[in-house]
């Protein structure tokens, strides 16, 4: 039994072409047999009468009124269609007009792309909080790539997001993966066929990249990598985004395990985070740089480094060089008086991981970004110096080494010419956002150095690198590895593996 529903809008005029299009749109809705929107002129009312859609309500319309006339299979369908018609009439537009022109504001961007759900903010830091606030006000989730956002802004933005069921990733969030989509600086996972059942929560950047890359090599696959920013786990911010992320991942049925990659949380925050992780109902792995196994509560698996985290998540182990025999061979060709490791890193988390790996092997380290027991870089004498060349003091007025590898060349030449350096450790980060050929500047520097010195290998330090990249990265993993190998670089499968090899060489040479 059909239901006829009429609604009359007094004194409402709309062009008949627009009304015809809207009528067709509504007629195509489920349960709608006929839909007619017309101005109530006598001739139009006759047409609607003939179409069998008019009732007593519509019959009383005047030529200044708009009649919405529906014949539906029931009240429910009719009401849905009526609501749709009214919404379209309020909005004015039938379907959004597509224009090639770019919007200037988030609001304008949303009107051109109404299905957007994330604002990726990479403006200069002083504008980032403002844009993030605009995005939240517009109902968008936010990823803040920009740095230099104040702690106060970060906290208030995250609180606002939490109150509206949105999430803020960052600030200073260099990397994220959402439902397999890599954002900003991120390696492509498109070549992986394994079901994506792992999710990670990470501060930002290369820690998440290295984990995603190693997990893929081990046969796993990352579904989500939520970057929360380096300060989220501080007591000042109180892990707002991390706690939200845990809740979100707990409710995602496709996620079987959650990996936390971070620096040590603030004391108050740690309790909250681990309690939520422990009760989220999934397998949880914690890779907290600087934690020992006993720092992690029961029920949560401890990962000593990113490789270990990936191995725990994939239940397999990474094929790596036989470190001891390789170290013995390499140590034998280290020249007299060479006993130091020099790390030249583009990735901050990788720099941290290396310091901790060396300390684990009993070596004393110094760094411009000290981790664990590292001393500051000014006190590097007698210690192994591991530098983060992407840190602020190196990137003021200069590009980041992941975007422009040439900025590492000076430091690399210095290390090559330093008679105390036995091993140079490097990271080569591939993926979206990174330089199109990151190994090139390194390779050229090594080749030039060798040519200039006409040297035997004993006169130069050993160079060890790991390449954080996948087979589907735009730079091409194999060609990057080959170029480095051809230039005499020893390639390890993971950053921590490279650090362990370096430590073993020093120990064998001693």
């Amino acid at each position: 039994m059909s239901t006829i529903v009429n609604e009359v809008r007094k004194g409402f005029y709309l062009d008949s072409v627009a009304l015809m299009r809207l009528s067709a749109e509504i007629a195509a809705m489920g349960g709608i047999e006929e839909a007619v929107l017309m101005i109530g002129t006598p001739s139009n009312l006759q047409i609607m009468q003939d179409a069998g859609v008019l009732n007593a309500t519509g019959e009383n319309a005047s030529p200044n009124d708009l009649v919405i006339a529906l014949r539906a299979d029931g009240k429910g369908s009719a009401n849905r269609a009526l609501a749709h018609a009214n919404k379209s009439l309020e909005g004015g537009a039938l379907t959004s007009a597509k224009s090639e022109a770019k919007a200037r504001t988030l609001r304008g961007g949303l009107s051109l792309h109404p299905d957007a759900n994330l604002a990726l903010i990479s403006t200069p830091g002083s504008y980032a909080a403002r844009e993030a606030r605009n995005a939240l006000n517009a109902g968008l989730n936010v990823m803040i790539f920009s740095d230099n956002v104040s702690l106060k802004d970060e906290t208030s933005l995250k609180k606002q997001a939490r109150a509206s069921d949105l999430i803020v990733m960052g600030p200073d969030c260099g990397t994220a993966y959402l439902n397999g989509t890599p954002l900003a600086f991120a390696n492509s996972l498109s070549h992986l066929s394994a079901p994506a059942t792992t999710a990670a929560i990470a501060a930002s950047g290369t820690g998440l990249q290295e984990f995603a890359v190693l997990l893929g090599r081990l046969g796993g696959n990352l579904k989500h990598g939520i970057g929360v920013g380096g300060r989220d786990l501080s007591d000042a911010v109180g892990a707002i985004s991390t706690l939200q992320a845990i809740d979100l991942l707990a409710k995602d049925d496709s996620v079987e395990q959650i990996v936390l990659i971070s620096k040590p949380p603030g004391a108050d925050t740690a309790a909250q985070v681990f309690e939520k992780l422990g009760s989220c109902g999934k397998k949880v792995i914690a890779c907290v740089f600087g934690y020992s196994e006993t720092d992690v509560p029961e029920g949560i698996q401890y990962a000593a480094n990113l490789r270990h985290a990936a191995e725990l998540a994939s239940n397999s182990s990474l094929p790596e060089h036989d470190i001891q025999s390789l170290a013995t061979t390499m140590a034998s060709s280290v020249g007299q008086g060479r006993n130091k490791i020099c790390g030249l890193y583009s990735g901050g988390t990788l720099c941290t991981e290396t310091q901790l790996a060396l300390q684990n092997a009993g070596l004393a380290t110094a760094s411009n970004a000290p981790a664990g027991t590292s001393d500051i870089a000014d006190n590097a004498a007698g210690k192994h110096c591991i530098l983060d060349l992407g840190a602020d003091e190196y990137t003021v007025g200069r590009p980041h080494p992941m975007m422009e590898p040439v900025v590492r060349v000076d430091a690399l030449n210095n290390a090559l010419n330093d008679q105390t350096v036995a091993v140079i450790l490097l990271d080569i980060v591939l993926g979206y956002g990174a330089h199109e050929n990151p190994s090139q500047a390194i390779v050229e520097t090594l080749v030039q150095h060798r040519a200039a010195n006409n040297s035997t290998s004993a006169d130069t330090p050993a160079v060890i690198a790991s390449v954080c990249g996948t087979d589907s990265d735009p730079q091409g993993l194999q060609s990057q590895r080959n170029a480095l190998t051809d230039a005499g670089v020893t390639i390890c499968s993971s950053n921590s593996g490279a650090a362990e090899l370096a430590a073993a060489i020093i120990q064998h040479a001693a």
Partner: protein
Amino acid sequence: MTARDLLDTGPKVIGVGLQGFVDDLQSQGFSASALDWRPPASKNIQALAAAEQLSNGSIAELVNNANAQAMERMHSADPVLTDVQLAADCIEELGDHIILHAGPPIEWQDMCGPMQGAIAGAIVLEGWAKNLDAAFKLAASDKITFEPNHHHDAVGPMTGIVTQSMPLMVVENKTFGNKSYCAINEGLGKVMRFGGNDESVLERLRWLESTLGPLMADTLLACDGIGLKNIISRGLSMGDEMHQRNVACTSLLLREIAPTMARVGDPDTVSEALAFIAGNDQFFLNVAMAMGKAIMDPVRDIGGASVVTAMCRNGTEFGIRVSGCGDQWFTAPVEMPRGLYFPGFTENDANPDMGDSTIVETIGLGGFAMAASPAVAGFVGAGGAADAVTYTNQMAEITCARNPEWTIPALDFAGVPSGIDICKVINSGITPTINTGIAHKEPGIGQVGAGVVNAPLGCFEQACIALSERLAAS
């Protein structure tokens, strides 16, 4: 779009900043678009802070609610052209030695050439001085009172001069019962709105007063007024934007009134009147202006609302009013229009931006409706049809809503951007685009071109500060 949706469906990104991140996503086939992001244009730190404050938290809620009410009033307006009356009969305060002008308040010595010229002409027309020389002297003395049209429910194009014996068209907003007034458009060439003041100009004004005004009044009374909302709707789909192009609306109006006029007037006068209207493509502009004033006046004083209720210029300064600040003016020096000039004229001949006609942009027409009028985009030097769309879409970034009834076929019937929000202007740095005629800087030469001009950011900066102070005090 909650965080949950973000994880379930994957990111659909709007990139704010580095283009490369968006390019990477697009190259992988993911949904992403980039903004043409720029740092805020305003250098006024106080204004930026005020706009930020008005756009966030509980104050934003208050402002948004007030703006919703403002939009409700704008969109429920029912403007009808009802009558033509002598200025003295509809504006009580008018009398001897009182002259109304376009734009925010201004004194004689600060007025531009065309406005002074028009005033001298009006003084002669009213018989307050025997000739133009005497009129200039009188105007410079303190015996003449100058007041903005906007203070008397009126608007006027260009110089906008109104004195007691001029016939004014009356538009009544039937929903709210308020009335607004605007003079009858004099036509092109040497006319008072461009500062013309010779005998031919005054002669035409006398004919408007003695002949066309009364005939239009009889006609409008006999046909019970002409509803204007539908004329605008149809005009938009016929390529008018109601500021620099009014040919469709003028024709539609003529079609509405001709049968009744033929019935109420004598044949020769009717013929003369219809020929006058038909001979002036911009005849409807003044109707649209009175309509704009009638629509915006009920919006004038809603506590907290950040919607602009008037924009106008006096040839020296640009002024805006904002709903939440009542009748307070916020002014800044007017800008020079950028546009195309008629043969024989250049930008050296141009007078700075002038007139109350920006009331048309205030209600979402003119530069805001550029997409409806690709012909005008070319005429005002704003580019082609695609550029016209960009203008309209950009104005949508600084408005509260889209008009549900005034739609643009070329935008798939999206409505014109409606309700300029001062906070959005400051936050985005986008200022309202105005389509305007360009007057010669010497009185009496008339229109020398057409172009686009932007409302100066300074007005909006001051208004944001004032509104935020008002809200802080309340």
